[in-house]
């Protein structure tokens, strides 16, 4: 029995957990106070309508994720949130307007009861574009992460296994490790930019590139998770029983790293979405009229000088919430691991 933390002074009185979900209430109170403070400062500083709007923007950015965060605290809740997002991406597009429909007459109108998120410079419905964008962003994110897992994980497991049990495997392992370390030295985005610029943007190529820059992550992750297992007695026993290498890998080692990889997978989908959005933001992502969140933020960036906040705000919020959900899920999975 280890002694980790002192119990509260006066341990004879029941100290236990007086706040079973402690912190949730003070946090909400704090958010409320902070909101009020920002509001007052803003009004004092510039008592106009637009400073109020600024405050509302900050609140949207801060409060939405906070509420989201405290809502999805369990594995089940975060899985549900994720499934909800996927469902939205799959069937949401059926219920919106055409995301590509141009309506120059209604260009750049702000959010209203009719057009919830307003319209962009070509009069396209931003709400419809955000919903349709979910399909593309999540699709690319999942495929890129899946490709990275499929390549990186077996490679990582193999390299440890080889160095432990095969002749010449040590060299293979260290070469692989050095190459993946060199990859790590590259700023992910710049490298992706460089490759896209060389090869030219298209969706399959984007998936390929985003997964390339993620392969070393899986390689190292699997490596570090497998290394302690590979020399374990049960693997040695399996080898002595004359089982082939591949079978040992699949039967004994990979199931042991499932949880870690699952957690990482979730993070990586998030990461892939961020890279895709970033590439599109600088104009190297998906081709032009396709609704994609990063590209939409770019449209909004150009409207910024005119104060048309809605064009950039909503797609960005969509990225934020999706990525947050995926990271949240990864955290939960890791905790039960």
């Amino acid at each position, binding site marked *: 029995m280890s002694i980790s933390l002192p119990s509260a002074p006066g341990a004879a009185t029941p100290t236990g957990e007086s706040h079973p979900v402690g912190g949730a209430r003070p946090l909400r109170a704090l958010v409320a106070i902070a909101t009020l403070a920002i509001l007052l400062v803003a009004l004092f500083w510039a008592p106009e309508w637009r400073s109020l709007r600024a405050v509302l923007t900050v609140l949207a950015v801060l409060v939405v994720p906070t509420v989201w965060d405290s809502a999805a605290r369990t594995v089940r809740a975060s899985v549900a949130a994720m499934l909800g997002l996927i469902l939205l991406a799959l069937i949401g597009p059926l219920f919106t307007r055409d995301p590509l429909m141009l309506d120059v007459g209604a260009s750049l109108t702000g959010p209203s009861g009719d057009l919830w998120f307003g319209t962009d410079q070509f009069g396209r419905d931003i709400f419809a574009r955000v919903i349709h964008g979910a399909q593309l962003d999540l699709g690319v994110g999942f495929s890129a992460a899946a490709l990275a897992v499929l390549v990186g994980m077996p490679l990582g497991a193999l390299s440890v296994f080889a160095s432990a049990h095969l002749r010449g495997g040590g060299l293979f392992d260290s070469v692989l490790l050095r190459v993946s370390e060199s990859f790590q*030295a590259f700023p992910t985005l710049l490298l992706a930019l460089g490759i896209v610029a060389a090869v030219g943007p298209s969706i399959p190529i984007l998936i390929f590139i985003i997964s390339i820059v993620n392969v070393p992550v899986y390689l190292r992750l699997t490596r570090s998770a497998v290394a302690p297992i590979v020399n374990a007695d049960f693997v040695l026993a399996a080898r002595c029983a004359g089982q082939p290498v591949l079978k040992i890998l699949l039967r004994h080692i990979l199931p042991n790293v499932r949880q870690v990889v699952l957690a990482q997978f979730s993070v990586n989908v998030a990461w892939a979405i961020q890279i895709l959005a970033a590439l599109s933001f600088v104009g190297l992502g998906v081709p032009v009229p396709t609704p994609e969140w990063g590209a939409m933020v770019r449209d909004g960036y150009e409207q910024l000088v005119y104060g048309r906040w809605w064009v950039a705000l909503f797609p960005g919020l969509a990225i934020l919430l999706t990525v947050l959900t995926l990271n949240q899920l990864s955290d939960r999975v890791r905790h039960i691991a």
Partner: protein
Amino acid sequence: MPLAIYIGRRLVFLLVALFGVSLITFVVTRVLPGNPAYLIVGVQADESTVEAVIERLGLDEPIHAQYGHYMRQVFSGDLGDSWRTKNPVTTDIADRWPATIELASAAAILSIGWSVPFGVVSALRRRSLSDRLANVASGLGVSIPEFWLGIILILVFFFHLDFAPAPIGRTLGTVPPEVTGLYTLDSLIAGDWGALRSSLAQLALPAITLAITTGGPLLRVTRGFMRETMASHHIRSARALGVPERSIVLRHALPNVLLPVSTMAALMYGYLLGGTVLVEFVFAWPGIGKYAIDSIAASDYAPVLAAVLLSACSYILVYLIMDILHFVIDPRTRT
């Protein structure tokens, strides 16, 4: 292990890593589909120019000879010319590198400044208010797209509230006489308070943007290490012998946490040296990142590659320096 041997060994690692970096950039430029000659001279170039480039780069030679060719070029400091700016890439880079260093450094300082203390405090009590806040802050920091955060900050603090100056470049006032190339430092050296004010004001929003996004992971890591340390046997021992809580945290736990956290911070800084791309673009910050993006937009390829190579090398260098520093500081390796 003596320091000299340690450094020597690390330098070998450095060479290996640099070799890997060069190999990757080489593959990206020369082996991937697409005609590298066009990428280098631009699509508008005529047939004879392209042929000349193919000749000069040795693109008709076998792969391994091409790699040798490529390495000779890089080592002689020839990273090609930018046909957009008409300058050698090395000259352009030298002009823009200080801007990136200034932004990355300011962001790193801010990021460490908020996330490390916050991480330490939030680790002390589970489920406390600061713990919950740290959850939200790190979640946001990790998940928020930095280009969008930059836009929101511009919208709120420049457009709506007028706190911040227009997000265009490094200064709205006079450029201080160049010493280090960092406007804030240079204006301090020159004693030009106006220039200092202006450059700090320009620096604020982009640096804050990056500090928020890079601080999230750092906060997480700090909190994790702090939790682990506070649960360790030696902390239990110190407590059991009546060492006061203040000393437990500051004297016993903190040094154990700062050692690994400083590595993470160094990695973060190394990452920032190549990771300011999007924020530079959003704030029209004339550094390497913006140079790379502008070049890509103009199908001008040599600068992009130079930027990739430079950031990879500086990442490795920062990592190396931190590694050696650790070796000197940590009593466990000093024996």
